């Protein structure tokens, strides 16, 4: 039921991408954005109010993305909903065939556009994954109440930041998520390839890359301004190592974007060669239209390209 699961199981190098929901109430606007990625990536993540900024809900955006012809991965964060709402929304998502679900704790409200909001954080990413696996495999809610029928075919995802302190604990933290139920895992921006390799190596040594597909997060630093912002410490979880900063600041300010794309293409080539890496996750930060260019540069666009959007469902349109 999950094309993403099938693709990863086949062992083919897999490309996923972020697709940020629109700040607005129109499915058409969402589909327009989704079409930019059609044919280029294997699945897209519909973020859940990323950075604590209000956007269209991830389930509605995921439906729009699917109607535009993409394979959706619906993100759910624990920031805004308690265990009652999270489980209920998971059942709702399953009921409309959303099987790729990705769980994260979520950015703190103070970073968003409603800094005065009440933080919820009832479950964390590990207990949420655990709960989802219990719902699917045991057919029970966290309370033990039976589900009739249980959500079936769920493919559970997680995220990890291999570069944040305590670095020695990050592989163990990923292992906890895999034990809890994660079947695929996307990472934060990979700039420091050596540190990433250590992290993947630790998971590989425990045989965990067999149980969970690892997708390395890759993004393009598009300009000097973007670099300043990303290295300011104001973006939760994002840090740009000094050697990358030196390289990007060493070129003409007008060609930072080009150098950033080159750097991303190099990272993709390096992680692609690492055993235990199933694919890449493109962190587009709202610039979906740059994805094709990046894939071409990295030399992994082979066979991919724009495709015609699926014909609108006549029955649905007539209703």
């Amino acid at each position, binding site marked *: 039921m999950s094309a993403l699961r099938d693709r990863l199981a086949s062992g083919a190098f897999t490309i996923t991408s972020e697709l940020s929901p629109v700040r607005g109430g129109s499915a058409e606007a969402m589909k327009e954005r989704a079409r930019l990625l059609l044919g280029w990536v294997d699945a897209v993540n519909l973020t859940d109010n990323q950075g604590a900024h209000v956007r269209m809900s991830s389930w509605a955006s995921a439906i729009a993305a699917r109607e535009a012809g993409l394979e959706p991965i619906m993100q759910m964060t624990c*920031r805004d909903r308690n*265990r009652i709402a999270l489980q209920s929304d998971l059942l709702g998502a399953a009921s409309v065939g959303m099987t790729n679900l990705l769980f994260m*704790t*979520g*950015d*703190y409200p*103070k970073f968003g556009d409603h800094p*005065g909001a009440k*933080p919820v*954080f*009832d*479950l*964390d*990413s*590990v*207990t949420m994954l*655990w*709960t989802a*696996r*219990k719902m699917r495999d045991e057919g*029970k809610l*966290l*309370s*033990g109440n039976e589900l009739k029928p249980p959500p079936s075919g769920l493919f559970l995802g997680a*995220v*990890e*930041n291999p570069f*944040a*302190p*305590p670095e*020695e*604990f990050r592989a*163990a*933290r990923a*292992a*906890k998520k*895999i*034990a*809890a*139920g994660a079947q695929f895992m996307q990472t*934060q921006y990979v700039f420091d390839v050596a540190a990433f390799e250590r992290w993947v190596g630790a998971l590989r040594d*425990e045989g*965990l890359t067999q149980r969970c597909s690892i997708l390395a997060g890759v993004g393009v630093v598009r300009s000097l301004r973007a670099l300043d912002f990303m290295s300011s*410490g104001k973006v*939760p*979880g994002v*840090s740009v190592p000094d050697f990358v900063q030196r390289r990007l600041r060493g070129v003409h300010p007008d060609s930072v974007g080009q150098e950033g794309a080159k750097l991303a293409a190099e990272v993709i080539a390096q992680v692609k060669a690492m055993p235990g890496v199933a694919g890449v996750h493109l962190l587009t930060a709202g610039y979906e239209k740059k994805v094709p260019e990046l894939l071409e540069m990295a030399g992994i666009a082979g066979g991919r390209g724009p495709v015609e959007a699926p014909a609108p469902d006549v029955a649905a349109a007539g209703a």
Partner: protein
Amino acid sequence: MSSGPVHVELLPGPPADWQPGPGEPRLPRPTEPRLAPRSAYVVQRFVKPNWLNRRVGALVERLPLARRAFTVAERKSKEDLFGCRMCGQCALPVTGYSCPMGCPKELRNGPCGGVGPGGACEVYPDRRCVWVVGYERAASRGHADDLRRLQRPVDHRRFGESSWLNYWAGRDDHLWTDNDGLASPPVMGDHQ
């Protein structure tokens, strides 16, 4: 009396000269433990359930006044040493004695991805992440594997209870898995 609707801004936002205050007193903030890791693990030997403290616990639980006094004493000492918030389901024995309830996200399963390069908390950058501190403390005494245990969700009904009495009475037995939870997927159990 004026007629017509009164215009009220729903969320006018703070005034221009506003500076962030200490935050809501009940919101969690990271606190560095004041008990050295070595001492903490020594104390652990006595606090771990054994025949003596089980008997004491059972006795204290029978007498409401004693129970209240015991709970106050626990609160005072743990507030001072660990910034305890009396969740009533203490995780300290497996977190290097750094309290996870001081994490602004109340994470009981390890640090979030937002820890700053120096180990700073993402929400309170002038404080260190409770999990960075906990990892260092646990690793320094050979207990790093404790942090691999899967912790169950917090039961919010138990805030204010004495966690020692809960610990000794066996009510905390299933708060976390073994540290080899990877071998086979752990079972969560029903959480009513």
